[in-house]
């Protein structure tokens, strides 16, 4: 199954897109709590793309591509902003950052998805959730894994 959508950078556009993406996932055998994790990651990544990537500029778009195979769900979200240095993201769980209100979106995504990588100078994020965890363990890559 493949899905592609492009939305202008407005938060108001997000709920309908999320609903569409989750509807597409109904055919996949994820557990209910995994669907909630995927939903959280989708929302965090799309909000980041709109707010931090495209800086809420409605003339810039956010692209969402979703592919489902027998082995995995792969979601790529890309914005049209300037990108960012994804290697310099602060750890929000260390004491000095714990009281900072922001900076937890990517951290949550990394914790809840099986593989996460950035591309196109940080404009894009690729998130993978394995349908069969054992199959996922066969792929030893250098990417961020849970």
């Amino acid at each position, binding site marked *: 199954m493949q899905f592609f959508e492009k939305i202008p950078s407005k*938060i108001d556009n997000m709920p309908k897109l999320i609903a569409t993406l989750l509807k597409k996932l109904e055919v996949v055998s994820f557990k209910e709590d995994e669907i*909630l994790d995927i*939903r959280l990651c989708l929302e965090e990544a799309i*909000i980041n793309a709109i707010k931090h990537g495209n800086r809420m500029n409605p003339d810039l778009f956010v692209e969402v591509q979703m592919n489902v195979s027998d082995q995995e769900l792969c979601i790529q979200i890309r914005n049209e902003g300037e990108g960012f240095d994804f290697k310099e993201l602060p750890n929000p769980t260390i004491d000095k950052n714990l009281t900072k*209100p922001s900076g*937890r*979106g990517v951290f*949550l995504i990394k914790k809840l998805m099986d593989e996460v990588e950035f591309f196109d100078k940080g404009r894009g994020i690729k998130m993978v959730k394995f349908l069969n965890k054992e199959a996922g363990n066969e792929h030893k890559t250098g990417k961020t894994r849970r």
Partner: protein
Amino acid sequence: MNIKQEKQDDKIIFTLDGEINISTSPQLRKAFNATIEDGLKKVLVDFSGVSYIDSSGLATFIEILQRLKKAGGRLHLSNMNEKVKNVFEITKLIKLFNIYDNNQEAITNF
């Protein structure tokens, strides 16, 4: 998001019903800020009707906690379902917040 408020002596209990996300967080922030401005310092938030929280929801609670602390107040959270509590756990925010299994326990510990 439905927000019910109940004053009990020197405490206020917020019972939340719905999702805490980027769309509902401003409503929540407004309700909490009004409480702080009213001078109520013991705030309990009952999460029993909360099915979902995202990072903007977490940010709202961190802001409220900081405002309350500055005003000499306390914030207790209770009745989280497993999924919501897991978000607080993986972000290590359980170290920052006082989280209780039920309202009675949360009230006793004020």
